C-alpha cells in the first residue's frame, strides 16, 4: 500500500493541507487532492508545458515536481489569477485575442507568460517567443498567443503609468 504523506501548501493564497500518496507529483496532488484541475496533464514527462504552475514565484512543471517537496511553499495556478470576478490581464488578453481554441494548453501558456511578465513587464516579441517555447499548442499556431501576451504587457504598463 502506498504510504500517505501529509503536506501543507499555500494554494493561490489559501492555506491548504491534504494527505497525498508518497511519490505523487504535484500535478496529481493538485488535481486529485486539492481539487484544482487548472493545471493539465499533457505528456507527464515535462515536455508539453500544460501543467505549468508557479512555486514560490518561479515557473515549474508540476508533472515533474514531487508534491512532498512543495511542503510549506506557495503554489500559484491559473485558477487563482482572477480576483473578485475580474480576470487577470493575461486572461483578459487571451480572451480578447482569441488565443485559445481547444483550451487544453491555455493554463500552461498563461502561467508561462505570467512568469515572464512578473520579471519582464515589457518584453520584446523574441522574449515572449522564448518564454512560450516550452509550451506545445496544436490549434492556434501560437501567433494569437504571442500577440495576447504582448497585449497584456501593454495593458499592464498603461495601468502602471
Amino acid at each position, binding site marked *: 500500500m502506498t504510504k500517505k504523506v501529509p503536506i501543507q501548501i499555500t494554494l493561490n493564497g489559501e492555506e491548504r493541507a491534504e494527505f497525498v500518496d508518497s511519490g505523487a507529483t504535484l500535478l496529481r496532488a493538485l488535481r486529485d487532492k486539492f481539487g484544482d484541475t487548472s493545471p493539465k496533464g499533457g505528456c507527464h514527462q515535462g515536455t508539453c508545458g500544460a501543467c505549468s504552475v508557479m512555486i514560490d514565484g518561479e515557473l515549474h512543471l508540476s508533472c515533474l515536481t514531487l508534491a512532498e517537496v512543495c511542503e510549506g511553499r506557495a503554489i500559484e495556478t491559473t485558477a487563482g489569477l482572477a480576483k473578485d470576478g475580474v480576470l487577470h490581464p493575461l486572461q483578459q488578453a487571451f480572451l480578447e485575442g482569441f488565443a485559445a481554441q481547444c483550451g487544453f494548453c491555455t493554463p500552461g501558456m498563461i502561467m508561462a507568460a505570467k512568469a515572464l511578465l512578473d520579471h519582464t513587464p515589457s518584453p520584446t516579441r523574441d522574449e515572449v517567443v522564448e518564454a512560450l517555447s516550452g509550451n*506545445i499548442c496544436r490549434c492556434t*499556431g501560437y501567433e494569437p498567443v504571442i500577440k495576447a501576451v504582448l497585449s497584456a504587457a501593454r495593458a499592464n504598463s498603461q495601468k502602471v503609468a
Partner: protein
Amino acid sequence: MTIRRGRGVAAVNYPTGMNLGGDPSQALVHSTPTGSFMVTLSSVDLGQGLKQVMAQICAETIGVSAEQVTIDTADTDTGPHCMGTFASRGTHRIGNAIIQAATEAKQVMLEVAAEELEVDAGDLETDGAGNIQVKGAPSKSISIFDTALAAHFKHGRSISGRGMFLIPRSYPETETGAMKPSTCYAHACTVAEVEVDDETGEVTVLTVKNVFEIGRALNPKMVEQQLVGGSWMGISHALYETTEPYYPNRDHGGTDFNQYLMPGPGDLADTEVVVLERPSADGPYGAKGPGEMCANPQIPAVANAIFDAVGVRVDHLPITPERILRALKAQQATT
C-alpha cells in the same frame, strides 16, 4: 553553398463535407418552460467553436439572442444522429439542420403567441430582444418568456422542432456522365516565400499570404482564428509532420505530440490572412466549410517556392532537408 530565396503560389477549391449522398446531420430544438432554447446534437465541438456558431444559427432563425440558446452535444447515444465533426462539414450540414429545426420550433412559438395576443400567427415577428410582436404594431407584443410559460402550462404545446439535412445523392447522366459529385466549394490561394539553404537543405518560410473565400463568415473572429491556425498547420504538413521522422527503423518514429512536432513559436512565418465573403446558395446564412481547406494551399505553395528557390521538385511530404538534398544531388547528376 548559398541561401536561396523563392516564391510559390497555389490555389485550391475545396468541397464541404462528404458527398455523393450519405452525409446526414440531425438537430432537435426545444424551448425550456422559460423560453430558453436547447439544441440537441450529436456533433462535437473540437475547440473550433462549433457550439458558438450553432447557437448563433439557432438564435438568428428563431429571433432571440445567442445567449438564450444552449447547445447540448453531450451524448451520441441519446442525441439525434450526426455523421460527425470532420470534412469541414459542421457549420454547413449541422447548421442547415438547425435552421430547419429552429424554423419548426419558431412556428409553434408564434402560434402560441398568436393565441395569447388573439391575432394571426402569420402577422407576428420576433424583435431579436426576447419579444414577439405584431408586424407594424410593435406595441402589441408578448415576451418569449411568457409565450413559453403559456405553451407549457396553458396550451399544452411543445415549442420544438426537428431538423435533418441530407445532400441528395447525385447520379451521373447516362448520356454525358455529368453529375454533381460535391457541393459548396470554398476557395483559397496562398503565396509563400521561402529561403532554402542548398548546403543543408533547410527551409525557412519567411512569409505566407493567404486569401480564403469561405462564404459568409458567421463569426468573423473565430473564422480568423481558424484560418491563422490552419495556415500554420499547412506549413506543418508541408515541412514537418510525419509519423516516420527517423529512418530506417519504424520504432524510431514519434510516439506522441512531444516528438510529432509542428512549427514552434520561434518557427513562425509572417502570416497574412484575407477573408473574402461570397455567401453560398445552400449554406446556413451563406456559410461554407472553411475548416480543412485553410490548411491545404500552403503545401503546394511551399513546394513551388522551394522549386523556385533551388530548382527541384519534391513530391513527397514532408519536404525534409534530406529530400531536398537528394533531389539536388539527382539534379546535379543529370546536368
